[in-house]
């Protein structure tokens, strides 16, 4: 899987339209992408807590409507003007391909304590996207929030839900108790034996934090279900 498309080192910004399309047309098996919710409940692809460092906009995604964010441009590559991506626009362009797996990393950044409907709005937007997009029948959903994952599980038990733990032990135990599909964890925080243990108990494993060819090979050695990599072309070859 790609990491936000073509990864952190690509000349296309992570989670941009161009990076995700490049990942798709490079022959990858899928991609992870970070999703956040706007003020008007539109899902956009963006990683950071605020827009300031990576774009020409300021503040949280949740503080802006999509109309405001649509003028947002990544500062990433000189001369470029790659824009922020509305998730529905991606699926309007991509052909239906159930074999290409999308993994949504849910970045939950509400606009303060007063934003009490944030989680329910997020869930509604995500389920609406999944239900209206045939390509997302086998998508993965990743989150550090057990509240989000458990609510999604109650609403749609067929969803593939991955818990994002701080350590393998805590993630392994909680994923079993809650009945999630698996865990998503840094390749540096899990051993080959622990991946095997997760598989033995019916849990899938997504590994990330692979930035180099050496990281790719080490992650492959552990035999996870998915690897989210910044060196996508290497792993495809």
């Amino acid at each position, binding site marked *: 899987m790609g990491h936000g498309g073509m990864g952190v080192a690509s*000349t*296309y910004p992570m989670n941009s*339209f*161009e*990076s995700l*399309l*490049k990942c798709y*047309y*490079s022959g990858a098996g899928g991609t992870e992408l970070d999703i956040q919710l706007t003020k008007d409940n539109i899902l956009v692809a963006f990683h950071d807590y605020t827009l300031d460092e990576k774009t*020409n906009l300021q503040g949280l995604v949740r503080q802006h409507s999509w109309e405001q964010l649509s*003028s947002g*441009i990544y*500062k990433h*590559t*000189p*001369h*470029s*003007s*790659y*824009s922020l*991506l*509305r998730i529905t*626009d991606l699926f*309007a*362009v991509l052909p239906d391909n159930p074999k290409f797996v999308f993994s949504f990393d849910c970045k939950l950044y509400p606009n303060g304590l007063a934003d009490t409907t944030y989680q329910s709005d997020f869930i509604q937007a995500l389920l609406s996207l999944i239900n209206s997009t045939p390509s997302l029948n086998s998508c993965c959903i990743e989150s550090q929030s057990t509240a989000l994952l458990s609510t999604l599980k109650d609403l749609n038990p067929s969803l593939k839900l991955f818990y994002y733990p701080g350590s393998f032990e805590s993630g392994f135990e909680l994923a079993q108790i809650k009945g999630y599909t698996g865990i998503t964890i840094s390749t540096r925080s899990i051993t080959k034996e622990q991946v095997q243990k997760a598989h033995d108990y019916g849990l899938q494993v997504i590994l990330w934090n692979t930035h180099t060819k050496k990281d790719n090979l080490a992650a492959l050695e552990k035999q996870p279900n998915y690897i989210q990599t910044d060196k996508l072309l290497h792993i495809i070859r």
Partner: protein
Amino acid sequence: MYNKFFAGKQCLACLLFSLLSSYAFGQTSKYAATIEAGGIGGYGSVNVEYTLDSIGKLALTGRIGLSTYHLFDFKNSFNPDIIVPVSIHAAIGKRHQFIGGVGASFSSMPEQHASANQLQPDLAFHLNALFGYRLHAKNRNLFYSILFTPFKSPNHPVRVWGAISLGYAF
């Protein structure tokens, strides 16, 4: 025929005199080619320079180059990004030169437009400045530069940028 003969000889004499004068007074060659990392071409560029005029240790030089980020677009079709940096700078000094100038770059970069649901080139015009130091090697053909090259793109703040380059004068 007599006038043409002497006119030809006069041209040849002028040419020889100017070449010898350049060597005698230590003037650099008119043309140069450079390979630059960073700079106003973005991540790098190849450039050609031409000395427009020079008086003593002061020279005015124009430069045009070519750069790219991708030869193939995100749908794996041959569709290169094209960046053409153009600049003019003044250089003071002979072997050790201090450089200051301004320029612009023109870019055409394929981007995916959601509203049009298609891949379109994004055309833009960027402004830049350049300040730095250039050292001419003792053999007088090779030179090395280190430059501060801030540039301004549409809808972006000024980007702090720099360059190092290797050049060959001919």
